[in-house]
């Protein structure tokens, strides 16, 4: 074999070796790529699977939110009117009125009125309903619902008024009667008796008003020290008198409490008129009234 043939064979062999080396290396790399793509495809498959219901859910959410927006926009415009509605929106979110309402395209052309925190119309409506005005929602006591008194006070506080400068919590007016939080025992008694619980039960609730007694001395009552009283107290003890503080009768025979039980002023009262005499006009007022006389006759008749 000539030398040139040997060199040719060697050259071809070298080419084949190079082809084998690089092609095998390429095959190995391609297998790695295939394995990597399998992993990527698996991940993408999970993404597709997990995101499949998203569209339907999001569409449903958007549909519900759209319904809510439609409802709130419609309600606001219906209750406040489109003009005031834009003012209210702009008062809450400055500049928001420029975007207008979604369902009311004409709202974009409306110049929003300046409505600050106080919307008189709404406040009056809330006050009329007995509800707390929005301006007072931040009250430490919390919003008041169906509190006519609270709603009235808050509606009143919307307007400048010097009374608002008074303390928020004035002491409550004193409660009188046996249920009063503070009981003032009378330090003096100028007549009558202080009813106890039994007497109050017997006479009724009206008798409780007497249980508060009179102004105690330490609060400047009439029996307070002279320096606590005004320069010219209206009445002194000598004018007002005082009770004995004892149940002992003032007379020897005492007082017969049953003496008045049989009294009959309607039949026994008045002057003795002569029998058969023509009554004089001046005696007309002394005579018992006809209704009283009739009542007495009825009573006598029923007794007999």
């Amino acid at each position, binding site marked *: 074999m*000539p030398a*040139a*043939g040997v*060199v*040719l064979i060697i*050259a*071809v062999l*070298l*080419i084949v070796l*190079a*082809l084998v*080396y*690089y*092609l095998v*290396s*390429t095959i190995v*790399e*391609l297998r*790695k*790529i295939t394995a*990597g*793509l399998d*992993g*990527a*495809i*698996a*991940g*993408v498959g*999970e*993404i597709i699977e*997990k*995101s499949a*219901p*998203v569209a339907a*859910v*999001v569409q*449903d*959410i958007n549909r*519900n*939110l759209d*319904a*809510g927006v439609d*409802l*709130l926009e419609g*309600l606001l*415009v*219906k*209750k*406040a*009117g489109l*003009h*005031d509605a834009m003012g209210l929106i702009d008062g809450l979110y400055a500049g928001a009125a420029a975007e207008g309402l979604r369902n009311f395209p004409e709202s974009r052309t409306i110049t929003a009125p300046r409505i600050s925190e106080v919307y008189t119309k709404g406040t009056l*409506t809330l006050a009329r*309903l007995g509800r707390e005005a929005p301006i007072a929602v931040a009250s430490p006591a919390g919003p008041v619902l169906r509190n006519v008194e609270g709603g009235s006070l808050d509606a009143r506080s919307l307007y400048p008024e010097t009374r608002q400068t008074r303390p928020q919590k004035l002491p409550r007016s004193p409660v009188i009667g046996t249920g009063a939080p503070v009981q003032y025992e009378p330090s003096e008694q100028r007549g009558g008796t202080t009813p106890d619980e039994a007497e109050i039960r017997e006479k009724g609730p009206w008798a409780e008003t007497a249980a508060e007694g009179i102004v105690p001395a330490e609060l400047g009552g009439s029996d307070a020290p002279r320096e606590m009283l005004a320069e010219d107290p209206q009445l002194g003890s000598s004018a007002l008198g005082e009770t004995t503080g004892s149940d002992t009768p003032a007379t020897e025979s005492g007082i017969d409490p049953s003496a008045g039980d049989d009294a009959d002023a309607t039949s026994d009262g008045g002057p003795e008129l002569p029998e058969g005499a023509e009554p004089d006009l001046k005696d007309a007022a002394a005579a018992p009234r006809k209704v009283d006389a009739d009542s007495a006759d009825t009573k006598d008749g029923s007794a007999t």
Partner: protein
Amino acid sequence: MTLWWIGDVLLLVVILPVVVYLLKGVLDAARSIEPSVRRIAAAASAGSKDLDAVPLLLTTQGQVKQTVEVVAGYGGSLDVIIDDAEES
């Protein structure tokens, strides 16, 4: 004979280097793809993990529905108790 030698030289000096160059290019390209594929697989896996929160959308859906129902009830009540605006 001379032609044989010329053929040998061409084979060794031209054909073999060209073949080697081309095969090396293919191998380099294949090796450069593999890291990219790995990154794609990692990204797909991370994306799939991020979508694990998708079921929470069902909760959101229910809550939105409830909220809108409450808003509808509240708005309906306001519609009854508050007078409509007077049309000017």
